[in-house]
């Protein structure tokens, strides 16, 4: 079947034999965007988190057929070195990553959180950021999430920055 969607702002039409193939593998292996990670394949770790129409989705457990007509953002489309997303900027300032493998998933989940709750409290963070980081970078991540909220607010509202 042919499935069409937008990924990082680009329209794509994909020939897919099995519409139940997890979106993760289409993105990693067919589109060669490797920033979205495989950790468990069972929606249990969050390493594969990306945005579909702005919502954080665990792409290992999301059949590609449901992506038809939707807009997907992966870490590669969140921001880049010249123009980082506030979340990426905050991650750099707080030097969050250790091994780094879980980090794209956390950054995507955080980007989605900040769209819904621009100034999350610690409790909001605890409730919404539920991915797994084995290196234990949560302490710096929390600081980075607060900082990202601040960077984002300042970029929207330059008068108060």
């Amino acid at each position: 079947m042919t499935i069409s969607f937008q990924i990082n702002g680009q329209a794509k039409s994909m020939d897919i034999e099995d519409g139940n193939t997890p979106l993760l593998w289409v993105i990693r292996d067919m589109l060669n965007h490797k920033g979205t990670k495989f950790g468990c394949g069972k929606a249990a770790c969050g390493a594969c988190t990306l945005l579909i129409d702005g919502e954080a989705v665990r792409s290992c457990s999301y059949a590609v057929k449901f992506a038809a007509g939707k807009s997907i953002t992966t870490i590669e489309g969140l921001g880049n070195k010249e123009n980082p997303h506030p979340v990426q900027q905050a991650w750099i300032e707080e030097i969050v990553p250790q091994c780094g493998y879980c980090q794209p998933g956390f950054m995507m989940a955080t980007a989605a959180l900040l769209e819904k709750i621009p100034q999350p409290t610690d409790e909001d963070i605890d409730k919404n950021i539920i991915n797994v980081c084995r290196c234990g970078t949560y302490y710096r991540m929390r600081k980075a999430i607060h900082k990202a909220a601040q960077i984002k607010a300042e970029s929207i509202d330059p008068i108060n920055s």
Partner: protein
Amino acid sequence: MSKTNKKGKKVSRRKFLVRGGLGTLGVLAVGTYLFRNPIRRNILAYANSMDMAYMGSGMEPMIWFEVTSDNQIILHSPKVEMGQGTFTGLAQMAADELDVSMNQIQIVHAQTDTGNIDTFSTGGSTSVAGLWQPLRELAATMREMIKVEGAKKLGVSVNEISSENAQLTAAGNSITYADAVKDVTEWEVPNTPPLRDLKEYKFIGKPIARIDLEAKVFGDPIFGLDAEMPDMLYGAVVRPDKIGATFVSSDTSAAESMPGVVQIIQEEDFVGVVARSYSEAENAKQAIKVDWSVERDWSSEEIQAILQVGEGNASLIQKEGSDIDDSSEVIEMEFSSPIGAHAQIEPNGVLAYVNGDKATIHISTQVVNLTRKEVAKRLGFDEVQVNIVPTYLGGGFGRRLHTPHAVQAAVMSRIVGKPVKYCFSRKEEFQHDMFRPPTHHVLKANLDESGMIKAIRHDFSSGDVAIDSPLLPGFVHSILGADVGAIRGGFCQYSAIPNIRTVSWHVELPFATSWWRSLGLLANTFAWESFMDELAVKSGKDPVSFRLAHIQDDEAGTRLKAVIQAAAVKANYTDEIVDGRAMGFAASTDAGTPCAQVAEVSLKNGKIKVHKVTCAMDPGVAVNPDQVKAQCEGSIIMGISASLFEKMEIRNSELSPTIYGPYQMALMKHAPKEIDVVLLQGIDKPGPVGEPPLGPIGAAIANAVYRLTGERLTAMPLQA
């Protein structure tokens, strides 16, 4: 004498300070040991201090450093980056002696084809500490070699030249490193120049941002599972659910006709499938029916029973004065820790391509050399026919000291004639982990009239950590008797106690156990430091001064005392409960690095909540203080996870859970909101960093809970 390196450039005679394997061992971190046999004493000392000499083969500066035409230095690292920050520390060390700035140095994993191979592993918190001397010497020598070339170009003598920011200057003229060396055909390698004084360094000791930070924030394809080759296929290997299962037969007929299947692989020791895509390979694997034979059923209770102190083989590893006096009052407690999983987020995986008489293996591995050896052996190749391309690791923690999957992928690739990529499913990760072994501990003590410890004894029992490890020479275990991994943290660090016995009991478990970040340290320290807390309470002393009173003023003791005092001061340690929160204190010495922690804990609906952890550690020179702190924070959170939640069970010989969630781990909500790290520098060289801060946390939490409830928690995972 000269020989030709890989770039065809001649290398003349040079001298490096190369240190070999077990020959140069550190001073014992704690106590004195029983053994008169110097070899046994040395191995034990080595095991306890992990004062690991660099065991690499690459001692030519040219195989470590490349000067690019745009005046960048590329450092080829034989150590791998798994999150511990080693790459950044190594780059800082090299830049400071090379006289280049941090943005003029890049670091990559050395492929084995470069000849820069570490014959040990990346592990044991040894990378920065072990390369401290050799890497700076290599960098300083490289700098002098570049100067020699620059002198020729500038028409001056070498000692007129100064070097800075990858540029040579003499008598008002300048030349870049790149221009100085661009047409070198024969390097002149001088004798190793003297190293600079610590104070002169610009980068060593500074909190430089991680060198891999941007790659990791922008999602660059740097991990093993991100590797790609043209025409690549996907493999999968069938694994049994039960421990001790052996292959009997398989029925692959259903799988053969599944969509995308290229070939079913039937080998003596595994059954697998190669398909066009990951999903197709996984689906076909599910359709392969394998008959396994299982000799007997195991349960967690049976494992517990064989694990008891007294059941396995004992080795006395520490002896001071006499044993416990059973005729006077003996204080005795028992502790235990469960089977723990590595649970690193990047599953084990590999991309292998066997093309004629050459094999290329892209892999997240901590044992580059061993991976190469094993692949070569299976393929019947010489080692030089196999090029290992190490990648960034999505977590290591000891899990990637075992890479038989590289062999399987290479076999599959040879059969299908194409590159084959394959990785573990998460269930396979959990069921076929090389687990942290469960442990059991018995501690006994006699106190004197003044409440001081007169005699103490620690008996601990563990499954394998390092026994039979291909990473250690076989003689280590046969000479020592004890498992050099399981004993980490098992010794008594309270050197002023006159009578000490430590006995390591080893049992054979029916499933694979191995190195898990800090090896025996977490469990041993949990037992030791909970017991010390109990003894402090029994003798009516506060836990800080009670500990200090039992430490001698030798070098190790002085450093240990300093971290204990620093943690207590920084945390404002008190025995009082304030706002429903109590503090717990614990300290450990691992591989020569002392660390003390204070955990601030409350109980909510019977659940343990860790609010704040204060950590004082003396790693010697902190090459990158920010990354040393990051290792403390990460160890504390990993330690909280292991102490409060993690546990594998065995039912009918099946290990479970097999997925995150049911295998509960610390999440954002469990991480302390405050982690306060204080670094001391008690010696003038870097010591181990990545594992020592994992020691105290379990006991610190349990000791805080004791102050809240009056109840001593003796089993991990801790439940109030």
